[in-house]
């Protein structure tokens, strides 16, 4: 096994080359870590960051495969082993997309309600949401509408049928 190559080529590798690859890998890691920092310019569109990180990861993978795993210096058998396996891996993921990856895309409203953390669209947790007065002691929502005129009297109405008044006030706020 001495020599370990049918190529008779001894010049490949070398500490200098490995160190260069090492620094490149460290730099690339810092680069993908950069997307996490607040200086990353595409904060609003995460897709850009994802694509960027995957590109960086693929580059790192190629560096490791080519130099550390010596694949760049191997004969053509390397393509037989790596390319089909990589292609099959991609197919595997693609095959999962329609059934698993898009499983929530066509949820019925009913089903979406039971999906993870679905929140009703017309969420009214601030002003006016209390207008329906579901607790026995009348609580009015109009007072929450940020110091609008007429909110104080609805608030002080206390027990009784101020629910209706508050509802009316909330409607007025909405329009």
């Amino acid at each position, binding site marked *: 096994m001495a020599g370990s190559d049918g190529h008779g080529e001894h010049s490949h590798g070398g500490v200098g080359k490995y160190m260069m690859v090492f620094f490149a890998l460290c730099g690339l*890691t810092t680069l993908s870590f950069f997307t996490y920092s607040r200086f990353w310019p595409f904060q609003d569109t995460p897709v850009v960051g994802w694509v960027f990180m995957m590109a960086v990861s693929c580059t*790192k993978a190629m560096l490791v495969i080519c130099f550390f795993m010596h694949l760049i210096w*191997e004969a053509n*058998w390397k393509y037989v*082993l790596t390319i089909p396996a990589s292609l099959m891996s991609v197919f595997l993921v693609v095959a999962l997309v329609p059934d698993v990856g898009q499983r929530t895309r066509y949820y019925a409203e009913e089903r979406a309600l039971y999906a*993870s953390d679905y929140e009703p669209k017309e969420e009214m947790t601030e002003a006016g949401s209390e207008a329906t007065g579901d607790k026995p002691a009348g609580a009015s929502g109009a007072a929450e509408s940020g110091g609008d005129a007429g909110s104080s009297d609805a608030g002080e109405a206390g027990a009784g049928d101020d629910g209706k008044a508050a509802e009316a006030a909330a409607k007025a706020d909405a329009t």
Partner: protein
Amino acid sequence: MTHDTHGGHGDDHGHGHIKLAYQPGLPLANGKLCLWLFLSTEIMFFAGLIGAYVVLRFGVPAGTWPHPHDVHLVEPIGAFNTFVLICSSVTIVLGLEAAKQNQSSIARLWLFATFVLGSVFLGVKMYEYNSKFAHGIYPSTPRSLIYDKADLNYASAVRQRLNDLATELGKKASAEAGEGQAAVPSEDQKRCEDLRDYLVFWAEQTAARSEDPGRRQAALNSLAWFIYPREGHKPEKFLAAETKRMEREKTSIAAELALVSGEQKALDAKKAELEKRDAAEVAEELAATVKARAVADERALTASERLRRVDGWLTLVPALDKLEHGINDAYHSLRLPIHIPSGNMWASTYFLLTGFHAIHVAVGLLMFVLMLRYRLDASNAHLLENGGLYWHFVDLVWIFLFPLLYLF
């Protein structure tokens, strides 16, 4: 194929003097070939796992995959581990270089360095797992505290847990107090009861009785937020509105209580007056008064019970608001159910991916230990080469796992 053994024009055709040279199918050693075949199956193995993660992660209802901080993933730690693995890849490759040049002691040193770096990686991984376990993030029940949805099921699980804890602590307190003496509830027990009677009660009642779906959900979300806050999910406006509402309710209950106590006094006076007169004459009226008094008592009782709940809420919620990382973090023994949207799916994929990767690292470490027994000179360089190939592959997997798990 240096000699043509087929053609009819060979010298020794038909004379049995064929010289056959050993010709391997591929220009590489059997061990290395086998390792590469193994690695190509490993590519498929991890592609399956990572692919499953990717489609599951991007298939969840929009925006519900947990933010890394929600599940205590620390990006710098992940980056550090990436760095450690890259370093270990370099050390093993330098070991191989040394072995090829017959410097077996240097090769051994590099191999040992690789072993140490691999151990550091596993140690950091262990620390990371531990920080998840401490917060009740496990891949499955019964230990996992994760609920995907803050719904009534979640609220009742919280109530159940608080109830069990309060009962348990109450038993302990009465056992300590001894026979016949009144048990003094401990602070923990009181806390459990307060949370159950004020916070959970309020959330459940609102969720069950409010006609506004937004408010129903907001109450449950608030409960979940107090227990296990997630960045950017504080229901600030809702809580401010609820506080105002509770304060108003308090004044209205106080007014009702004043009204009722006035009624009670009036009824008492009437009763006393009626009792002075002829019993037979006023029997009916007296009975009606007594009945009215009972109704008033009932009203007073309900009102004061409501006042207790409202008062409790109004003192409890501002106190909870001051907790920096929620109830579970402030009081570790509580271990209340936590709400992380898609948290269970996250935990399953995270522990599966990192777990399988960690197993591969552990196997690599075992391999290094076995290799340290050999003289790592040029004749044994193939050991380092094949071990190195495997180790680089493990590094490769982590290169993809780090951004996918920590940064996406």
